[in-house]
C-alpha cells in the first residue's frame, strides 16, 4: 500500500533533505579551513622543500628532496584523512573547486619564479630562503579565501534559499 503524499508534504520533505546536507557542507568547510595542523604542516614542508631546492643541489639531491617532499606530504594527507568524520561525495565537487586548487598552484609557482628572478644576484642560500618564505606566505594568505570560494560553490552559492525567499 502506498503512502498518499500531498504537495505540501512533498515540499516539506524536499526542504527536510537540505538540512542534513547543509551539515555535511558545514563539516567539509570546518575540515578544509579549520585544520591548523594540516595547514601549517603543509606550509612547513613546502618551506623546507623550497629552501632545500634553493641550495643548488646536485641531481641526486634534488630527486631525494622531491621524493621526501612527496612522501611526507602524502603521509600528512593520509593522517588528515583519517581524522575526517566524512568525505564529500565526488558529485558535489564543482569546476570551481578544481579551479581554486589550480589557481593556488599557479600563484605559489608564480611567486617562486618571480622571487628567483628578483633574488638572482644573492647567494643561493639566501635566495632559497627568500623564495621559500615568499611562496609559503602567499600559500598561507591565499588558502583561506580560495577555500571559502570553492566551498561556496559546493553549497550552490547564488541560488535562492527558502529563508531568502521569505
Amino acid at each position: 500500500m502506498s503512502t498518499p503524499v500531498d504537495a505540501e508534504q512533498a515540499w516539506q520533505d524536499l526542504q527536510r533533505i537540505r538540512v542534513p546536507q547543509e551539515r555535511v557542507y558545514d563539516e567539509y568547510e570546518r575540515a578544509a579551513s579549520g585544520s591548523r595542523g594540516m595547514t601549517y604542516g603543509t606550509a612547513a614542508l613546502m618551506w623546507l622543500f623550497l629552501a632545500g631546492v634553493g641550495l643548488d643541489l646536485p641531481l641526486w639531491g634534488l630527486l631525494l628532496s622531491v621524493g621526501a617532499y612527496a612522501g611526507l606530504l602524502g603521509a600528512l594527507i593520509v593522517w588528515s584523512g583519517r581524522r575526517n568524520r566524512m568525505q564529500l561525495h565526488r558529485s558535489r565537487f564543482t569546476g570551481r573547486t578544481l579551479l581554486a586548487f589550480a589557481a593556488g598552484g599557479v600563484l605559489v609557482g608564480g611567486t617562486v619564479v618571480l622571487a628567483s628572478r628578483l633574488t638572482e644576484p644573492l647567494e643561493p642560500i639566501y635566495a632559497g630562503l627568500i623564495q621559500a618564505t615568499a611562496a609559503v606566505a602567499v600559500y598561507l594568505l591565499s588558502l583561506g579565501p580560495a577555500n571559502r570560494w570553492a566551498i561556496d560553490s559546493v553549497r550552490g552559492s547564488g541560488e535562492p534559499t527558502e529563508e531568502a525567499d521569505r
Partner: protein
Amino acid sequence: MSTPAGFDELIHPSTRLSVVALLAATEWADFAFIRDSLSLSDSALSKQLHTLQEAEYLEIQKEGGGRNRRTKVRLTDRGRTAFEGHVAALRAIVDSAGPATGAARKQPRAEAGR
C-alpha cells in the same frame, strides 16, 4: 492521489529520509557524525541503519579497535538510485500541484537530489 514512480516507501519516513539525504552528499560518513548531525540517539540511528542495510541501501564498515574503533557508513549505488528516484517523485508531486500551492514556485535547488 496516485504516487509517482520512484517514490520509495522505505526512504519516506522522516528520520530515514534525513539519514539517506546526509549520506547522499558523502562518499562515507562516520556513525558519530551522522548521529550528531541528525541529533539522534545511538540506538535510534542503529535501528534506521539496520533497516536500510537490510534493503542493501547502505554498507556499514567497522575499522580499528578499542578507542580508535570507528564505524563508516556508505550509501550503495542501489541506495543512491532509490534516493534520487524518491527526490524526483517528490518534485513531481510538487509540480503536479501547480503554482497555486506556492510550493512549486519555490523549487529547492537541484543539489537536493544529486
